[in-house]
């Protein structure tokens, strides 16, 4: 089998049967990466020695009878997640030279399960962006059309998986950063319910929104990763105490039959590319054919979601990114002779345009005299948005929507920040409400650009959501 065809499930099965070892799988990955990444530019760093060592340890564990499903599976890691001994640049110059002293909880869990976390993939700087063009180091390309973006901010994760250079990857999603690149690259991207996955060790963009999630070739693979990632963490008090579901049993015999699937009318409006609308409509048809009941619903406060998001996320980010000051780690300006200029210049030199823009925006909306009008009001509107979902889920089991208004756009095509922000129109509301949502491939445009659909579920219905997505996947087969 060619490396690009391995899924987590199939590789695990082959390793169990002794058809391939973890070391061989990792060597194949490295070969593929060396062959393809010159074009795709997904990886920032890859610790080859560490990968081989971890893989051979996994092989020993397997020989000793360990049957963990992630044993020996290489996982590409978005470059804002700390792995002990590895860099963690967040695609920013301000963290150049930083070596992490600790494992994020998600990494500790993956390592414990035997996964190999050696490759670090590109992203928009500090996860701010929807195209991965905001990386300080390289512009990652969409494997389906190298002139186009992979989406973002988890663009490196999506491109590595879609480009056959990774079996699976971790992304993070704050307002759509897993789902939109998954849609652009034609893979599965799952953002869990807020609180399901620990954020400890995951560089914060917007603390009340950030969630780590799997980016994989299949829904089944997402479930396998989610099984390892989920769970309360003593290092993260915002993780929920809800019991972790058994995904394998949830996915067994998954079916759309009898499910009530809601179409929020605010998500089906002019402005979406006709080809995207067509593919989403076809997906709705397939759900109906498979026995789902399609229901029209309304989420009346949808139109306010973007304004809320671009207040709340930059506000939190302005504080979260204050620590990058050139004192304890990272970039320090050579041109500073006092502490104040050390701060101001190190940050000016270290941060890119989009990050600066959002820090300024976030600082402004929190500043004296503006808090109530912006941040305070936004958090209240967030409640209204959450209530919209609550009442919709009184009528339906899941919502089905487009992921993004367009397929992948050209590198350099979107210059104006506001039009870039509009990319997240359909993914932001679920983020604000903390809901689980998934992007599943639904088809491709005439030009061969992938388009996904988004399923959104009620809080903590992560396992039913994956079951629904799995059943949808079947309708395409």
């Amino acid at each position, binding site marked *: 089998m060619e490396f690009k065809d391995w899924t987590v499930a199939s590789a695990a099965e082959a390793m169990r049967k002794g058809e391939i070892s973890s070391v061989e799988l990792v060597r194949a990955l490295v070969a593929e990466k060396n062959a393809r990444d010159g074009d795709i530019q997904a990886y920032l760093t890859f610790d080859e020695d560490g990968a081989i060592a971890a893989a051979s340890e996994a092989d020993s564990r397997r020989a000793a009878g360990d049957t963990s499903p992630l044993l020996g599976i290489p996982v590409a890691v978005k470059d804002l997640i700390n792995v002990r001994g590895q860099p963690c640049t967040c695609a920013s110059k301000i963290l150049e030279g930083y070596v992490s002293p600790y494992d994020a909880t998600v990494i500790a869990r993956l390592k414990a399960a035997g996964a190999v976390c050696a490759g670090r993939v590109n992203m928009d700087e500090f996860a701010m962006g929807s195209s991965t063009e905001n990386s300080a180091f390289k512009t990652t390309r969409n494997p389906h059309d190298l002139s186009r973006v992979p989406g973002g901010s988890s663009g490196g994760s999506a491109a590595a998986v879609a480009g056959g250079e990774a079996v699976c990857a971790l992304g993070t999603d704050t307002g759509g950063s897993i789902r939109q690149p998954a849609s652009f690259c034609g893979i599965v991207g799952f953002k869990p319910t807020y609180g399901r996955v620990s954020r400890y060790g995951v560089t914060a963009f917007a603390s009340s929104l950030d969630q780590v999630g799997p980016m994989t070739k299949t829904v089944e693979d997402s479930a396998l990763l989610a099984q390892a990632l989920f769970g309360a963490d003593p290092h993260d008090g915002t993780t929920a105490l809800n019991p972790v579901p058994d995904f394998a049993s949830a996915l067994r015999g998954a079916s759309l039959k009898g499910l009530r699937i809601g179409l929020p009318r605010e998500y089906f409006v002019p402005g979406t590319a006709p080809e995207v609308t067509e593919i989403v409509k076809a997906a709705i048809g397939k759900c109906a054919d498979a026995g789902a009941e399609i229901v029209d619903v309304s989420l009346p406060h949808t139109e306010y979601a973007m304004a809320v998001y671009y207040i709340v996320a930059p506000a939190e980010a302005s504080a979260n990114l204050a620590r990058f000051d050139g004192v304890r780690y990272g970039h320090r300006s050579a041109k500073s002779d006092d502490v104040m200029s*050390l701060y101001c210049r190190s940050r000016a030199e270290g941060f890119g345009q989009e990050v600066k823009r959002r820090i300024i925006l976030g600082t402004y909306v929190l500043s004296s005299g503006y808090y109530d009008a912006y941040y305070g009001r936004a958090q209240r509107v967030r409640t209204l948005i959450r209530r919209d979902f609550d009442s919709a889920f009184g009528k339906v089991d899941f919502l089905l929507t487009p992921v993004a208004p367009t397929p992948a756009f050209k590198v350099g095509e979107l210059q104006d920040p*506001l039009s870039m922000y509009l990319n997240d129109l359909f993914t932001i509301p679920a983020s604000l409400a903390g809901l689980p949502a998934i992007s599943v491939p639904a088809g491709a445009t005439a030009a061969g650009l992938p388009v996904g659909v988004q399923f959104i579920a009620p809080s903590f219905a992560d396992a039913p959501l994956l079951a629904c997505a799995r059943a949808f996947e079947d309708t395409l087969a």
Partner: protein
Amino acid sequence: MSSEGFDVQYVARLAHLELGKDEASRFSGQLGDILKYMEKLRQLDVDGVEPTMHGHGRTNAFREDVPVQSVDQDLFLSNAPERTGDEYRLPKIVEDA
């Protein structure tokens, strides 16, 4: 709520970001547009609506007061842009806050 009087250099100082003149005027225009877009929130009546922070209602995420040995300090100090001995070095701070 209005973007009037949006003094980008004042906000940049609060954020400890040095902005060049071009950068400042570009941001000023872009952020002005964004803030204008946000004015739509004014249309909503949010009186009596509680703010949302996290989706779930967990409280009291405490830890017990039991020391855990810190990991090797060298890993931290080796990240220091500048150090003197075991301390993080800074330009001389003249006044204590």
